[in-house]
């Protein structure tokens, strides 16, 4: 546990210092989105990496948070902070109710069911034009504010969003090392064995699903207040898949791996702009390369790669270095 505390403090310090050299750069804006995506990836990792339950509909929870915040603050002028809490509770509650029938399913069927509700909510965002503004979006969402401090530029939003993300990471690290975390891993390996050990498998799965959805909703609310505009294209099936990719590329069951995955997938398109029209091909090729050569995700792949390179460079034990 002590190691975890040290790790977290180092990570938090790096996050807090990152904006200093960036100042007015557009990269600061990209890092704001890295923060939101990290929050989402960590939330999905609880479900996918720890409990071993796939969800191809997490963009819907993200979208629900964003739309609840957007509609209630832009159209009805309610207190944004209150709405963030309300959105988290509502979406978490909805996921709790949905979770009972859905999480009975396993494997491909679970993937299908979550995919289904993801698409249903996407259609709802698109079609309820009177409420959501439909495909052309919902403008005029206010920035968050505390007293006279308004979060209206990248730097302020960076600290706001990363503050929430760091708190969530702390919560998840704690959870992972608790009795619940161990129970989740037991479910991941064998549901029957977990049940024999006295774990209430069904309830725990639904609870973690609800928690994951609630965190996603908070991410959605923060996204809406940062962008001040939302439209359904940001909450479609593609984004759900992107989230799953972040978690897998980063490393299943590793909280910091989720950060690496989210950072990579958010920053990569920016770095690949040099390829102009061929950036999508390079993007795809890199992802394929990483899944083949780093099946354990970046969190394990990067140290292995460094070890491998080190041994090659020094000429010691060059033959048997592992890249897995």
């Amino acid at each position: 546990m002590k190691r975890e505390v040290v790790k977290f403090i180092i990570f938090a310090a790096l996050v807090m210092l990152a904006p200093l050299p960036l100042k007015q750069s557009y990269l600061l804006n990209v890092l704001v989105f890295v923060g939101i995506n990290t929050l989402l990836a960590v939330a999905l990792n609880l479900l996918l990496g720890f409990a071993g339950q796939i969800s191809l509909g997490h963009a819907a929870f993200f979208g629900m948070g964003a739309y609840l915040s957007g509609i209630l603050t832009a159209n009805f002028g309610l207190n944004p902070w209150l709405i963030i809490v309300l959105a988290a509770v509502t979406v978490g509650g909805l996921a709790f109710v949905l979770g009972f029938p859905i999480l009975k399913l396993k494997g491909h069927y679970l993937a299908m069911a979550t995919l289904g509700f993801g698409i249903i909510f996407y259609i709802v965002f698109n079609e309820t034009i009177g409420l959501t503004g439909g495909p052309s979006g919902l403008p005029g969402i206010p920035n968050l504010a505390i007293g006279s401090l308004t979060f209206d530029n990248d730097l302020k939003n960076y600290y706001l969003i990363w503050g929430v993300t760091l708190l969530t990471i702390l919560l998840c690290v704690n959870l992972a090392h608790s009795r619940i975390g161990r129970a989740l891993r037991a479910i991941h390996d064998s549901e029957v064995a977990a049940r024999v050990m006295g774990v209430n498998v069904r309830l725990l799965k639904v609870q973690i699903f609800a928690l994951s959805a609630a965190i996603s909703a908070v991410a959605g609310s923060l996204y809406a207040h940062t962008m001040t505009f939302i439209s359904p294209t940001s909450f479609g099936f593609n984004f759900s898949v992107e989230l799953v990719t972040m978690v897998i590329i980063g490393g299943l069951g590793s909280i910091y791996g989720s950060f690496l995955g989210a950072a990579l997938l958010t920053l990569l398109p920016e770095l690949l702009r040099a390829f102009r029209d061929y950036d999508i091909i390079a993007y795809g090729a890199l992802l394929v390369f990483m899944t083949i050569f780093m099946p354990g995700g970046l969190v394990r792949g990067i140290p292995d790669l460094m070890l491998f390179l080190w041994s090659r460079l020094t000429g010691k034990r060059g033959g048997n270095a592992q890249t897995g």
Partner: protein
Amino acid sequence: MLGKTLAAAQIALLVLGVGNSALAAQPIKIGALFAVTGPASFLGEPERNTAQMVVAEINRAGGIKGQMLELIVYDTQGDATKAVQAANRLIKEDRVVAIIGPSTTGDTMAVIPLVEKEQIPLISCAAGIKITEPLKKWVFKTAQNDSLAVAKIYERLVRQKISRVAILTVSDSFGSSGREQLKAQAARFGIQIETDDTYGPKDTDMTAQLTRIRGSQAQALICWGTNPGPAVIARNAKQLGLKLPLYMSHGVSSKKFIELAGDAAEGITLPSGRVLVAELLPESDRQKKSLLGFVKDYQRHYNKEGDHFGGHAWDAVMLLKGAIERGADTPATIREQLEKSRGFAGIGGIFNFSPQDHAGLASDAFVLVEIKNRDWLLVK
């Protein structure tokens, strides 16, 4: 395949060209955001091609008052988040003086808060009425309002004494904006909407909706969508033996639609920008020179027909060129000069911007065309 290779060669040339001019003198940097990939690529691709073409042509002719242009294009994929990230990069990293695009109303609405705050002029290529109403200081647009296209169809229906219509619209931003306008303007023209159906952008069979329409009192069918949906509707209508006159939107005003719908396209009427019928326009038409120039250049550069959507980017670049020619060189002065653009005969129409109007087009921006013998016929 050949087309792709040619396009790649074009881009390579353009890259080299821009690189050379960068060495020569400080080029004027213009940013562009287009949905080149993703569901709105039917807009983004021709827009990107056109913008690159116009900039290459301007530079070939010696730039604007000796200064070269540099165009920096980013793909938004039709996603609001990516559009905002790309706009941030254009403004803070590339330090452009103005931005052209985005292609869709959603993307445009997403970047508006940013350009207003950073004070960079934006010339959107999307049609949504929300973009310029209410007026935003830094935001202009070149695409015709959907309301103008709807009015054009309704005027024709009134002349033909048709008062009961069925509408069938696609459930994306293009269709929902059309649907809103069709419903909003019906009363003004004394038109009654008998049935109001929608279809999904990827649907491959619309017989169910058409059967319902066949059983209604409607005297005409208006369909609002972009390829390939409307082609499916045209074919299904023919298979069902639906006798109603069929009206489409400007979303299908390209040869591609006739290709997709085949014989079923015969007799369909639609509003379109003048670009489709450039050759057929009388010599007195003020836009004719611009239109023929655009069509000829596009054919030469890409070996394809330039369409209505590419025209939005043509207008945007040329409006910027006009502003820079009149001495503007910073975002603030470009904005001021853009606002003073009067009587500019572009592809979409005759633009007259003013401090009160950042859309700048009158209702004659659209013409009605009918499809006859797999070609366009100007409806008088």
